[in-house]
């Protein structure tokens, strides 16, 4: 997670005073970078993946698991090769880079060097991911494992942490998780507390519970300490924050403690970056549904399969005025989304863009927009940045207030890195040869590295296909948002339909069919996941056939071609329902477990077996063909 500067973070009452200062200088920093880098051309494709792991401690004798809060110590070991290399102690560049994440039980790994553009690079992804997992285990105790579950199923249940702590911390003020669950670096507890202070209440997360035959209806959660009176915020639950028939969560940890699979890639120039940002935006909800892997929250089976709304609610710092619950008095705008959510506007000036695709209200700071425009930034990019900057900076370090705007981007990154969206457009750092980049953020991490590699490679190939075929995926953003809602649903991959553009080839327009109105070319329709991924007769050709057609147009050796085909086959079969998504597999595992009482409760005993299975799958010791298929290449 972004920016880990050193220093004293300001409490909210003081941070608020400097919001304008940070925004103003953040814009100047952006302008300096923009003008310096806007004409850079011919950058090669470089890209990387980010995988987040949960560290779990096993007690095989008692058959229990606990979240290990030792990430800090584990990271010290993992980061040593990088430190030694940076200090010239060793000449070997590190194979992987490791970073802390929000949870004190989470570690994040990325490849040591970015991957390149060749197909050989693509088949090198899985070995690198497997190596990282091995490295992580080598740095842990023998009874600790790194699993790539999206979330620990019983996070927020009592006594699930090692060391154990009561949920009575001042930063979270949560009824379920202690402050010790947060990464000790000053940024994270400050972020947590400031979100709550700015919002004026705890964050409110409610995910619908899955009603099984023995689940009470209505479901009123007996594990909530309804009458606790440790903090003022404790009464929020019983005053309506905790909805019936829902799994209630009240802390940032439930969201930012989730693990994702994120892909960042470099564009050849700023225009290509903006174009790919736009074309991948409609793909984000599709990939979330395809990668869905999180059906359990706080020890209960949910009626959703994906985590996005949980994270969105977990960092929602909007005040009641901003949420439209009270008339605007102290705040400037009514804002329709949390600072973690899907994108609100398209970014590219490509000829295929049409204004009708931007059909949701875009709230942006007019003064900032004017400043950007007067300094030569075009309308769309100015609106994009001015929209990101309607938010307040949540973590400001006292010592780092005054910066050299020509050489620093800290204030820009402050806002940039605390707007978490389905796509992120990333300007280069100042004084760097790194180019304009795009980050694809909606995918859920998978249990095994074969799957994580498959999904990563799939996205990269899809970007090559968009560029090679000149594809147009534009649909109105309101429909993209509708797709995000749909993508959460239980078994969305099998049962739901998603809005998708019908005609994606830009060249074959109505000129070849006299009499066809131009508007028809922009039509979108509801398609099944199978149609979107595998194609529809006389309709959209499908992501996988498009990728195969692209690969057929290159000089690719047969071994690499077959390996890539196994990845495409996994995606294809997940979309057709021949293979289960991770969420479906986990759900089935719980519901078929002998100790499951058909009451939506995921007990410690079930969790032990589930986490153990996740670990075995990751290590290759257990191979469920209903999840992973049987690909030999």
């Amino acid at each position, binding site marked *: 997670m972004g920016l880990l500067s050193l220093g004293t973070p300001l409490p909210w009452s003081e941070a608020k005073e400097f919001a304008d200062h940070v925004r103003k200088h953040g814009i100047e920093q952006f302008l300096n970078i923009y003008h310096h880098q806007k004409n850079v051309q011919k950058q090669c494709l470089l890209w990387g993946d980010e995988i987040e792991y949960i560290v779990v401690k096993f007690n095989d004798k008692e058959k229990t698991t606990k979240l290990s809060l030792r990430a800090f110590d584990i990271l010290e070991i993992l980061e040593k090769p990088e430190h030694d290399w940076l200090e010239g102690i060793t000449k070997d560049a590190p194979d992987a880079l490791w970073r802390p994440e929000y949870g004190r039980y989470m570690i994040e790994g990325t490849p040591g060097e970015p991957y390149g553009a060749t197909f050989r690079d693509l088949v090198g992804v899985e070995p690198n991911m497997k190596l990282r997992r091995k490295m992580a285990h080598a740095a842990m105790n023998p009874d600790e494992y790194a699993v790539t579950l999206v979330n620990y199923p019983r996070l927020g249940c009592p006594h699930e942490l090692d060391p154990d702590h009561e949920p009575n911390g001042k930063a979270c003020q949560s009824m379920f998780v202690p402050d010790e669950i947060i990464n000790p670096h000053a940024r994270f507890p400050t972020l947590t507390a400031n979100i709550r202070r700015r919002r004026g209440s705890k964050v409110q997360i409610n995910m619908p519970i899955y009603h099984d035959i023995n689940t009470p209806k209505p479901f009123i959660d007996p594990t909530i300490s309804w009458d606790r009176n440790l903090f003022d915020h404790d009464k929020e639950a019983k005053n309506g924050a905790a909805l019936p028939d829902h799994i209630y969560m009240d802390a940032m940890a439930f969201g930012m403690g989730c693990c994702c699979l994120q892909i960042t890639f470099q564009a050849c120039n700023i225009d290509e970056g903006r174009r790919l940002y736009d074309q991948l935006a409609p793909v984000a909800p599709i990939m979330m549904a395809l990668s869905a892997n999180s059906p359990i929250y706080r020890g209960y089976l949910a009626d959703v399969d994906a985590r996005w709304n949980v994270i969105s609610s977990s960092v929602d710092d909007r005040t009641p005025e901003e949420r439209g619950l009270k008339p605007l008095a102290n705040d400037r705008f009514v804002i329709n989304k949390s600072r973690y959510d899907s994108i609100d506007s398209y970014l590219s000036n490509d000829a295929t863009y049409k204004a009708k695709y931007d059909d949701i209200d875009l709230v942006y700071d007019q003064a900032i927009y004017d400043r950007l425009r007067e300094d030569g930034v075009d309308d769309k990019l100015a609106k994009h940045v001015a929209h990101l900057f309607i938010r307040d900076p949540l973590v400001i370090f006292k010592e780092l207030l005054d910066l050299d705007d020509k050489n620093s981007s800290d204030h820009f990154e402050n806002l940039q890195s605390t707007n978490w969206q389905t796509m992120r457009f990333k300007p280069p750092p100042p004084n760097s040869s790194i180019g304009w980049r795009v980050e694809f953020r909606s995918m859920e991490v998978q249990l095994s590295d074969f799957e994580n590699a498959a999904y990563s490679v799939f996205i990269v190939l899809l970007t090559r296909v968009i560029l090679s075929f000149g594809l147009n995926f534009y649909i109105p953003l309101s429909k993209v948002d509708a797709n995000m809602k749909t993508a959460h649903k239980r078994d969305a991959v099998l049962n739901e339909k998603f809005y998708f553009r019908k005609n994606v080839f830009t060249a074959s327009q109505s000129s070849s069919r006299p009499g066809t109105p131009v508007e028809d070319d922009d039509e979108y329709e509801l398609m099944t996941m199978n149609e979107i991924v595998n194609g529809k007769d006389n309709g959209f050709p499908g992501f996988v056939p498009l990728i195969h057609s692209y690969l057929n147009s290159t*000089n690719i050796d047969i071994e690499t071609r077959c390996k890539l085909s196994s990845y495409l086959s996994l995606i294809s079969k997940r979309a057709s329902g021949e293979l289960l998504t991770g969420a479906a597999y986990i759900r089935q595992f719980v519901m078929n477990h002998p100790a499951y009482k058909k009451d939506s409760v995921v007990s410690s005993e079930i969790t032990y077996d589930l986490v153990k299975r996740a670990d075995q799958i990751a290590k290759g010791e257990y191979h469920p063909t209903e999840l992973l298929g049987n690909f030999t290449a």
Partner: protein
Amino acid sequence: MPSQDYPKQVSVPEFKQLVLYTGNVMRNSITSGKHWNTKSNAELVQAISDTLDTSLYGSDKPSFRYFTESELLEVPDLRLSSRIQPEDRNDVEVTAKLFYLDRCNEYQVSHIDKAIHHLQQLLNVNSIDTFIVSFDTEESPAHIDKAWKDLEVYHENGVIRKLGVSDFDLVTLTEFLNKKDLKVKPSIDQVHVDKCCSLPKDLIELGKKHGVEMTFNGDTTEILTTEALSSLLNKHGLVTDKTNVKPRWVLKYNVFFNCRSVVADKGYIVVGDVLN
């Protein structure tokens, strides 16, 4: 798109030879479906149909050129220019694959000369990075040798960087590599893979030993039949249903940005003769 709504008559002079350029096929729909590794010529057939649609019926006046002396009809594609910018030449890899469809000896030499010449003009380049030849299975070794010798000359002159063959199995490739008069080894052998679970391990090994890369071949060897070409031309009003036009050769080319893995251009040049 089916062209049944078009008038089926276009007025072109009587021609004896035909050259057709499809232009960039990447910008239209794709033809491969669920079975990516089935050998197919659907892309070429669709491309020819699209080109005839656009060139002959796409605007007020049909677009073609006619060379009276040789009675040659040239149908260019006007949609996009395929010329590579000189400043981009070092960033792209140009690959060409020549399908020999007409087995008449006397044409063999000029196939390669003509194909290279057409491609150089079309793409505005002097050199071609990879040139692959595809012979049908009954082609005699003597003819293959002759074609290869011509290619070796182009390689020596720096026009072609890497040479490649197509559908050479273990026996054929071994014999070819052992030829006494072989001056330039193939760098590529384009082979078709039926099932990924049974890759031709021996062939791959042989390739690794001699620096020959096995790349994927998705094309049918007889990529265009007389029947298919004649039928397409008839449907688009260029010839009557009694005329047969035999394809002489087809050149498939692609332009690939290496460091971004983007296919910038992919197309076909089709040359055919009207039979009496």
